[in-house]
């Protein structure tokens, strides 16, 4: 069983990120870059599957600049068997990422592509579903539980109103939600062992074709300042005065 785990390098999700005053880019305030948190959950899940079944093979893949090597090394330290860096300084939007991942999936023939539901920088929530469409594979997004057995995936997934269970034949695409698992802390031996694991670098096989272009970045509108009230009684009379409670 081969599991492909795409990894996006994103700015630390806890960092304060702002639009540059001239609207042309992002000010990340020198924050660190990390594995997209949802991709870390995908990787953790793949590693747990391998712990249960040693024949599972995990390939981590990232598309981007040479700096993505840091995140792939971390993926290897978490337990991926090998990593592929599709090295490119070009801009890749989610559909272009999906197209490149589709080409790679055709080559590597994974049984499962396990990836994040959304990148915490662009908040797009597109690449996985687009990849599944390009491959004409079934999908299960927002997974909170994943079982693999007998060539099938059984996935509990979060919905707007609760949860549902989907079952499908492999190969398929599954995206992770926060409650799937809690990623492990990487111990020192893993980091050392990761140095000797294979990390291949190669150019993309597709050209990014941007279907959307970001033309401006702005600060969100600010709310007029509010005020503190001294008591529940004062709060209730303010809310009544505003007409938001009867």
């Amino acid at each position, binding site marked *: 069983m081969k599991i492909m785990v795409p990894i996006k390098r994103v700015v630390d999700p806890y960092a304060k990120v702002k639009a540059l005053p001239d609207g042309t880019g992002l000010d990340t305030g020198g924050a660190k870059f990390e594995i997209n948190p949802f991709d870390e959950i995908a990787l953790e899940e793949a590693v747990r599957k391998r712990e249960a079944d040693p024949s599972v093979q995990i390939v981590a893949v990232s598309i981007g600049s040479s700096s993505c090597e840091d995140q792939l090394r971390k993926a290897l330290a978490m337990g991926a068997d090998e990593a592929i860096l599709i090295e490119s300084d070009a801009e890749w939007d989610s559909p272009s990422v999906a197209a490149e991942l589709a080409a790679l999936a055709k080559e590597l023939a994974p049984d499962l592509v396990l990836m994040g539901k959304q990148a915490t920088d662009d908040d797009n929530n597109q690449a996985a579903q687009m990849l599944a469409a390009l491959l004409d594979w079934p999908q299960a997004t927002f997974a909170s539980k994943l079982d693999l057995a007998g060539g099938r995936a059984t996935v509990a997934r979060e919905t707007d109103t609760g949860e549902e*269970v989907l079952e499908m034949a492999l190969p398929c695409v599954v995206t992770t939600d926060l409650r799937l698992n809690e990623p492990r802390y990487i111990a020192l031996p893993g980091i050392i062992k990761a140095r000797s694991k294979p990390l291949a670098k190669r150019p993309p096989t597709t050209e990014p074709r941007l279907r959307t272009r970001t033309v401006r970045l702005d600060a969100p509108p600010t709310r007029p300042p509010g005020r503190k009230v001294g008591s529940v009684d004062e709060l209730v009379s303010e809310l009544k005065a505003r007409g938001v409670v009867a």
Partner: protein
Amino acid sequence: MKALLIAFDPSELEPLARFGAALGAPFDVLLLTGSADDGYGASEMLLAGLATVPPADGLAKGIASVAEGYTHVAAAASMRSKDVMPRVAVLLDAGMVTDAIAVLDGKTFQRPIVAGSVIATVTVETERVALTVRTSAFDPATPTGSANKRSVALYCPTAVARTSAESQASGGRPDLTQAKVVVSGGRPLKDAGTFEKLIGGLADALGGGVGATRAAVDSGIAPNEAQVGQTGKIVAPELYIAAGVSGSTQHLAGMKDSKCIVAINTDGDAPIFEVADFGLVEDLYTAIPALMERLRP
């Protein structure tokens, strides 16, 4: 320009029509389940009459099969629309905009990125446009009376079996994304029973829905579908009451467009107070029962 708006059920008709009006182009509505009379300005209502919404692989093919001839295909942002719309975009070779909050022109839209810290203006470079839309960002649509209706047969071939589909009951409370009042609780609510008694109780006193932070959901005191934020639901009610919620960027991303925000927190420096219209520095265990007492109808 002509838009096809995808409504999963009749409750999405009015919210979607808001976007149709903002786009300023004629629009048809594809209603997947249920039926309705008023199209809120739709030129035509296509009734698919599905008993349940099929899995995304099949549904995307079904939607794409009726989407010929439309420049824009849009759905209200939700987990079910985000599941299927990117697949529809591939089938139509459309550029896709997730979570649109403003229309600048037929090809230019605004959307929040990085947990709402930044508003991006994006242009779509392809001929056709697919979108999910945060309908609460647009002005309400007015009823227009009975629309032209036509039945369509959606063929949705799927490779996915649905072994069970259970919806957690929301206790008869209004849907979070459409509620006029939302009461949310965070980590300090000790357990599910306490959460239900205090947050649920105040929500019921106000006829509102129940929300939660990720910390509350993670520790099992609130149900999954109550999570508000970057990775949960986006809400914009008339009144949002946050109790024991610190106000992380990720939580704010889901509620800071609420009309009136009330924060109840023991820490007067908690970031939630920066977006609150009214802040009460008090223990929620005393403040909420007192509020319930005074607000109960």
